[in-house]
């Protein structure tokens, strides 16, 4: 896989692009969240990803892939301690553990990273696929990254972004079952889940693409 891998410095640049995308999408995310929740997801994530931007900027240049992902997760949970920020932050830490010591990311690593993240959200959030949460987008990302057309890490991240977008879109037809959205279910139907959409924005940023919202 040498030559086709993504080095830690490039992953850092890609995570910074994801921060930019989340900050740009804050109003759209809050509007989606307002359909079924508190309506503060965009603002909360803007605070969280602003903090990630600073932390990634200040981190020493020699940090490896695992450390980068762990730093991203720790920073998000501390700065945006909503249930969503906590779960996504912990999921990134799970990914950091899964890729501990790696200095270059290959296609298999991308799949392992997404598997760890989806598994972390499912376990810690006590949710399953189909319950209209961020897990629907994460799980779709993971499955797409395992697809047959994937050869390089960049391919895998692109496929993951496509999967995330499809997974997020599919939540519009799902009935909320957990959290606050669970008891105002009818209001949420027809809109994609805000958390799943947030992952689609992040995955597009990491893939180096504009968000198609």
């Amino acid at each position, binding site marked *: 896989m040498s030559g086709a891998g993504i080095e830690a410095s490039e992953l850092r640049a890609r995570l910074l692009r994801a921060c930019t995308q989340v900050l740009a999408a804050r109003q759209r995310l809050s509007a989606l969240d307002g359909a079924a929740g508190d309506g503060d997801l965009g603002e909360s994530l803007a605070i969280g990803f602003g903090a990630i931007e600073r932390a990634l900027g200040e981190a020493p240049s020699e940090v490896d892939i695992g450390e980068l992902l762990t730093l991203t997760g720790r920073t998000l949970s501390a700065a945006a301690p909503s249930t969503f920020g906590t779960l996504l932050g912990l999921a990134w*830490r799970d990914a950091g553990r899964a890729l501990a010591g790696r200095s270059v990311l290959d296609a298999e690593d991308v799949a392992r990273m997404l598997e760890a993240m989806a598994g972390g959200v499912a376990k810690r959030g006590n949710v399953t696929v189909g319950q209209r949460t961020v897990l629907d987008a994460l799980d779709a990302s993971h499955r797409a990254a395992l697809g047959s057309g994937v050869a390089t890490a960049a391919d895998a991240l692109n496929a993951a972004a496509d999967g995330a977008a499809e997974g997020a879109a599919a939540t519009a037809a799902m009935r909320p079952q957990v959290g606050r959205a669970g008891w105002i279910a009818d209001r949420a139907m027809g809109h994609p889940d805000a958390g799943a959409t947030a992952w689609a924005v992040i995955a597009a940023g990491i893939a180096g693409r504009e968000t198609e919202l």
Partner: protein
Amino acid sequence: MRKFLNDPERFADEALAGLLLAHADRVRALPDEPRAIVTVGGTPGQVAIATGGGSGHLPLFVGYVVEGYADGCAVGNMFASPSTDVMLAVTKAIDRGAGVFYLYGNYGGDRINFEAAAEFSADFGVEVQTVRWADDILSAPPENAEQRRGIAGVFLGYTVASGAARAGGSLAEVAAATRHALERTRSIGVALSGPILPTVGHSNFELAPDEMEIGTGIHGEPGVRRGPLVTVNELVAEMVPQIVAELGIGTGDQVAVLVNGLGATPPEELYVLFGSVHGWLSDRGISVRHAFVGEYATSLEMAGASISVLHLDDVTAPHIAAAAERVRL
């Protein structure tokens, strides 16, 4: 809203700062985690007890970082869970080589963060066992008891956990004794008015001037019945039988009773409540061995009270008796 405030956004931090200054002889914040509060001192080789939760409930949670209750506490924002790293920092700081026992209220955000902290603690060689306190019987039916919220009865849990630890119990024994205490404790709350978060500025639920709500949670979670405020004796006759039925107690049994004020209810009213609870139980041959009447778990200026009953036995009685002695002093 009429509150003593400087900056609503800084309320939790300023309250914690004042508490630390007032009790500098027994608690301190960790230098790298200002929301991680630990005791000064501690006995080597003893199981350490960690707790944590949102701000806005004093003396819950950080007020129990004192000899006889807990060794450390992760402090969150108003009504919000502390982060995983704060609890992890508490855990590493208080471990004395015998492991750390987590005792906290059964709330979703706390569960996610503290379960993760327990998992990460293992990476640092610290073993953790947990009991999530869930004594509020009106927050979920008995068949879903694992979903129940934790309220003031957790005070009794701390006393049993700490007593078991100080008696030299292992981590597993401390957890087992506390779980045993939880299985023998039931609570019910009643609200007369709601709490006001400083950044929100108005009560988080409204009751008419002559209304009460039974089963309200300590963050204003909706209760099970609203209606005109009745007399204390009528209220007790509605609440206490539910507790007694779930505990399965009757003539000849011995209990500890905790009547907890939610923040704005005067001690006199709590003693009127206690007197009525005592009378109701005594009339049925149930002996009240220990009484705790006061503020043990509040919700800012929420008016109301909760009643907790612990069915005493050989495991719990010595620890509850020791706590009663401390509180008397």
